[in-house]
């Protein structure tokens, strides 16, 4: 009798052990895959650093692109990127937050809202080069705006709009409804509730989304190439601020421009290895910018989560 029970016990133990081994094997495979993927990321960063970091110098940042690889720099590219990002942020953030606020707080559940939602999710999946074609056909030739900072900023703003909308909606969803109800309870109307209570408490989440969106925009190349902005730019747009009245001017919006990823692509497509070094150096700077922005966004979200938890 007890022998039989022992046998059964041993069989059960074997089964349990087999299952534990299964789990262990899968866990190891999972970690291996993670290591391979992360290894690729590390290799990519290391390769870029080895090729390019020696090229980064104050002269590299303050010189215009040139036919001689050793004398070329990214001055017009990083200034172009900065100006384009200003335009992108100024368009995408208000529009994205507005649309997110409407869809999350105002919209009734009807066919129209449904259509807008399907549409936003589809826009997020439209290839960036299609936005470039839109800008080429509509902004550049339809409205005759040319290949300017304004058009570059607008096309990137359209591109990241869905990211800002989705982030805004998530941030709004996390605002406790008690806040909403108590604000209505003291007699605030809908806009007052939004402006004074809901938006301020959703601000960190919205900010995170905006930064992630901008970090995507900063590295986008295809739409800018498509509008035909890949040209030799060895001058700067007019300065937005000046020492004489009227101090601020907007001529820079209508100036031709180049941006960092375009400059990098340009140098990659040259056959000479010396230009590849320049490309790698530009890549290091670009990667540094995007990773910094993303790191900041991740940090913000982490802090936000901790705040919500406690």
């Amino acid at each position: 009798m007890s022998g039989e029970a022992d046998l059964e016990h041993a069989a059960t133990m074997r089964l349990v052990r087999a299952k534990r081994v299964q789990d262990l094997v899968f866990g190891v495979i999972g970690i291996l895959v993670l290591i391979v993927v992360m290894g690729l990321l590390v290799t990519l960063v290391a390769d870029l650093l080895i090729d390019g970091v020696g090229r980064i110098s104050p002269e590299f940042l303050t010189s215009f692109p040139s036919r001689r690889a050793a004398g070329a720099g990214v001055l017009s590219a990083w200034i172009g990127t900065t100006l384009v990002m200003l335009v992108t942020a100024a368009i995408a953030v208000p529009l994205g937050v507005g649309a997110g606020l409407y869809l999350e707080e105002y919209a009734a559940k009807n066919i129209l809202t449904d259509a807008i939602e399907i549409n936003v999710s589809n826009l997020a999946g439209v290839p960036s080069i299609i936005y470039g074609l839109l800008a080429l056909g509509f902004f550049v030739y339809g409205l005759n705006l040319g290949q300017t900072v304004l058009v570059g900023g607008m096309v990137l703003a359209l591109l990241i709009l869905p990211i800002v909308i989705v982030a805004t909606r998530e941030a709004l969803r996390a605002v406790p409804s008690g806040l909403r109800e108590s604000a209505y309870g003291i007699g605030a109307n809908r806009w007052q509730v939004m402006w004074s209570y809901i938006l301020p408490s959703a601000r960190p989440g919205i900010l995170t989304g905006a930064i992630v969106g901008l970090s995507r925009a900063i590295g986008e190349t295809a739409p800018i190439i498509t509008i035909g902005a890949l040209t030799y730019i060895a001058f700067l747009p007019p300065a937005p601020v000046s020492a004489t009245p009227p101090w601020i001017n907007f001529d820079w919006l209508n100036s031709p421009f180049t941006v960092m990823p375009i400059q990098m692509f340009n140098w990659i497509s040259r056959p000479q290895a010396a230009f590849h070094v320049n490309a790698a150096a530009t890549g290091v700077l670009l990667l540094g910018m995007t990773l910094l922005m993303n790191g900041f966004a991740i940090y913000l979200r982490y802090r936000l989560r901790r705040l919500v938890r406690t």
Partner: protein
Amino acid sequence: MSEYQALQASPFLRRGRILAAVMQALLFASAALSVLITGAIVWVLVTESLPFFTQVPIWDFLTDLQWTPVFTDAHYGILPLLSATLWAAGIAMLVATPLGLILSIYLSEFARPSVREVLKPILEMLAAVPTVVFGYFALLFLTPLAKQFIPGLEGFNLLIPGIVLGIMILPYVVSISEDAMRAVPMALREAAFGLGMSRVQMAFSVIIPGAFSGVTAAYLLGFSRAVGETMVVAIAAGQNPNLTGDPREGAATITAYIVQMSLGDLPHGSLVYSTIFAVGLVLFVITLIFNLLGFFLRRRFREAY
């Protein structure tokens, strides 16, 4: 006049109401703008490619085996571009499907919450790398390296950009499928353990079937991204239209062709100018189909639980 009516009529409250109404209209306008954008995309693609479709019969466009729009003997068959696009995206899926499945199961079922908190930001970092940097990596690091192991690999090829595309869409695919897996109710997991399943058995016979529509959606959306991705293939797959069955050769994808044409001076209104909108339209339709399929599948898994 009651006290309530007097309050309602006060100029202060009226100003507030007017502002609220104006803001509501503005917010609606910004939400409606997204529909306008889609409309504008379709309108631009259709009207700008019309000159092309009036000159080139659509049958030739879909069946001609050559794409040589700037040659004197011009052929306008999209098949070479389409086949290169599908090769690159297909290879990307071959890489992303197994890796993505393993990673998402690992993250949702195996990793401790503290581990997950560290890993997810790292995956996000991977997603944040600019595509032009991936292109550099594919052309100037991975291709020379792979040439030593793969005989016959050309300097521009479809294989390496395809693999890099797979790595690029991985974070995206993992994040959607992990979401879907985590939405499977805990009770199903507990029931599986109660039946004596191991964690692996539970993952494959309960979680994956339970999250099937969400996981499928992740791959559909990932495929759509790989099809529309531009810089990696434009840099590392070459710009020569080439109808090939061998991924070791280079071939221009739809996106690479658009980039190549945009680099030169495209006279507005010429036939060559309208070719980029014609192939863009094809690209848009393909990604639209996959995006919509993905959207509805994703929504279904959200409703299921």
